[in-house]
C-alpha cells in the first residue's frame, strides 16, 4: 500500500484542536471532505487575479476568467472520462439531480423524455433523499409510478425481483453508485442491462463514488451521473451533471436566463449549444476553478492509491468493530464491493449520544438518518453512527475511534 501520510499537512483544518482541547480526528468525509490549501488558494487566486464574468466581456480579465473556467471544465471532464461539452457545472449534486428531473418534466409530450401516467421510475430503498424526492415529485406531477429495489438484511441491493422492478413501463432508473450509509457499491451491470433492454434511461448518483475511486463514464454504460465538489476536496457551491451529449442536446434546459440562449425575443427563446445550454447566469466560476484544483490534487495522489488506502482503513475498522460486543455493523461486513463508509450502532446507546461522546474526544462522525430515512425505517433503526474516510485519515484515526467506542459503552453504563 502506498503511504499517503505526506498529504495530511496540506489540509489546514486538520491541525486544529477541537472539543476538550483534542486534536481533530475527522471521520465525516461522507458528509463533506476537508480541503487542501491548494484548493483554497486556487479559489482565492481566481478572485485576486482573474475575476470577471465569463463568456461576456471583451476585456482581458473576461478572457482569462473564461479560459480558467473552461479549462476547469476540461480537467473535470477528463477526470471522469467525459467530453467537456457534456460536463455541466451546477451548484451541487442535489441541483444536478433536480435539473434532470425537471428537464424530463419540461419535455414536450411528444419527446422521448416525456414522463406520463403509466410510466414507471425506479429507485432503491437505499437512496439519499436527493436521489429519491425529486423522482417522487416527478412521479406526482406526471402521474408516473415510483418503483424501487429493496435492500437485503446484509445491506446490499436486492436484485432478486429485477425483472419485475425494471419492466417495459420503466422510463428512468435512478440509483446510487455507493450507499452513503451502508458503504455498499451497486453492481451496475445487471441493472444497466435490464434498463437497456427496455429502453429506460439510467441516472447514477455518483456522490460517494467519484470522490473515492476512479469512475469513467465511458465504462459505466449509464446516461447521467452527478456528484458534488465539496465531497472530493473541492469547494462548496459546485457540483457536476454529466449526461450523454446526444441526450443533453435533445433535452429541455432547466434554468433559464443569461448565457444559455441562442436568440431571444419578448415571446420566444432558443437555446445555446452544450454546455452553455444548461448553465444559466454568471456561473460559480471561482468554485469551478477550485474544483479543478481538487481534481489536480486527486490525480497527484492517484485514485488507485486513494482507494487502496481507504479500503485498508475500512477493513481495519470493520475488523475492529466486529470484535466489540454489543456493537452492530450496519452494512456489509465483507470488504468486497464496499467503500470507505462504516455505519454502526451500539446497543443501549442512541447514535446521537455516541456521536456526542466521540466529539468530546475530538472524533467527528455523523449520526442520525444520513438523509436516507426510508432506509432507516426499513432496517428498523432510529439512526446509525457513521465513520467515513478520505485520503487524510490513517490507522491511528481508526484506533482512536475503536477505543472510544469501547469507552462509550462504559460511559453510558451499557451492560454487555
Amino acid at each position, binding site marked *: 500500500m502506498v503511504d499517503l501520510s505526506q498529504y495530511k499537512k496540506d489540509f489546514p483544518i486538520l491541525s486544529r484542536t477541537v472539543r476538550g482541547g483534542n486534536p481533530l480526528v475527522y471521520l465525516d468525509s461522507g458528509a463533506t471532505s476537508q480541503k487542501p490549501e491548494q484548493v483554497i488558494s486556487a479559489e482565492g487566486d481566481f478572485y485576486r487575479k482573474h475575476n470577471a464574468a465569463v463568456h461576456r466581456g471583451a476585456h482581458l480579465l473576461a478572457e482569462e476568467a473564461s479560459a480558467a473556467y473552461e479549462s476547469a471544465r476540461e480537467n473535470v471532464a477528463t477526470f471522469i472520462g467525459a467530453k467537456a461539452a457534456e460536463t455541466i457545472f451546477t451548484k451541487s449534486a442535489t441541483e444536478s439531480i433536480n435539473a434532470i428531473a425537471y428537464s424530463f418534466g419540461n419535455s414536450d409530450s411528444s419527446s422521448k423524455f416525456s414522463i406520463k401516467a403509466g410510466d414507471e421510475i425506479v429507485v432503491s430503498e437505499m437512496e439519499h433523499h436527493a436521489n429519491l424526492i425529486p423522482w417522487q415529485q416527478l412521479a406526482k406531477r406526471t402521474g408516473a409510478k415510483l418503483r424501487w429495489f429493496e435492500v437485503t438484511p446484509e445491506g446490499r441491493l436486492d436484485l432478486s425481483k429485477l425483472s419485475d422492478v425494471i419492466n417495459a413501463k420503466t422510463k428512468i432508473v435512478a440509483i446510487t453508485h455507493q450507499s452513503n450509509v451502508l458503504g455498499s457499491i451497486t453492481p451496475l451491470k445487471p441493472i444497466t442491462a435490464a434498463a437497456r433492454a427496455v429502453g429506460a434511461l439510467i441516472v447514477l448518483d455518483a456522490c460517494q463514488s467519484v470522490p473515492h475511486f476512479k469512475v469513467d463514464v465511458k465504462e459505466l454504460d449509464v446516461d447521467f451521473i452527478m456528484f458534488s465538489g465539496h465531497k472530493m476536496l473541492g469547494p462548496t457551491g459546485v457540483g457536476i451533471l454529466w449526461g450523454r451529449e446526444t441526450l443533453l442536446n435533445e433535452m429541455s434546459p432547466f434554468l433559464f436566463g443569461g448565457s444559455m440562449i441562442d436568440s431571444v425575443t419578448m415571446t420566444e427563446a432558443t437555446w445555446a449549444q452544450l454546455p452553455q445550454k444548461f448553465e444559466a447566469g454568471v456561473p460559480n466560476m471561482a468554485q469551478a476553478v477550485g474544483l479543478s484544483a481538487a481534481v489536480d490534487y486527486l490525480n497527484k495522489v492517484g485514485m488507485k492509491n486513494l482507494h487502496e488506502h481507504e479500503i485498508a482503513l475500512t477493513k481495519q475498522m470493520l475488523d475492529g468493530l466486529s470484535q466489540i460486543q454489543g456493537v452492530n455493523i450496519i452494512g456489509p461486513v465483507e470488504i468486497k464491493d464496499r467503500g470507505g463508509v462504516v455505519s454502526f450502532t451500539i446497543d443501549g446507546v442512541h447514535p446521537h449520544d455516541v456521536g*456526542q461522546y466521540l466529539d468530546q474526544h475530538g472524533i467527528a462522525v455523523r449520526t442520525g438518518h444520513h438523509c436516507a430515512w426510508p432506509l432507516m425505517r426499513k432496517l428498523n433503526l*432510529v439512526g446509525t453512527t457513521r465513520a467515513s474516510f478520505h485520503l487524510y485519515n490513517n490507522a491511528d484515526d481508526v484506533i482512536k475511534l475503536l477505543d472510544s467506542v469501547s469507552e462509550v459503552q462504559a460511559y453510558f*453504563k451499557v451492560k454487555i
Partner: protein
Amino acid sequence: MELDSLYQAVILDHYRKPHHKGLQSGFDIQVKHNNPSCGDEVTLNLSISDGVIKAISWDGVGCSISMASASMMSDLLLDQSYEDANQILAEFVELMQSKGQSQGNEALLDDAVAFAGVSKFPARIKCALLGWMAYKDASSQLMA
C-alpha cells in the same frame, strides 16, 4: 469532563426509566413532533380540563436528551394549571437558550435544571426541546 455537564446522572436515569412513556387512551389531543435533522420523534397525548393538565403521556424514539427531557416534562406539567405550565415551559426554553450562563430556576424546574448543561451544546438544544415543543403545540391548540 465537559460531557458530564450534559449527561447528568438524573438525565441518564430518566432515559433508562422514562416516566409517563407509553401512550394512554382517553386524551383530548394527540400531536406528533419530530426533529428532521436526526430523526427523533415524540408523540404526545394531552388532556386539559378546567384549565388544568389532567393527563399527559408520550411515546417516541430518540437520544437520551430528548427522551429524558420528555420524561421530566411530563412529571413537571402533570396536574399543573395551564398558566403555571406555561411559566415552566418558558423557564425551560430560557434555560436552553442561556449558552451555559444560567443554572435554571430549581423552584420551577426541579430535576430539569439538570438540562442546564445542554445549553452549551447548540446541536442538542433541539433534542431537549422536542417534547416541550410537542406540549406547547398540543396545549395551545386545546386552549385556542
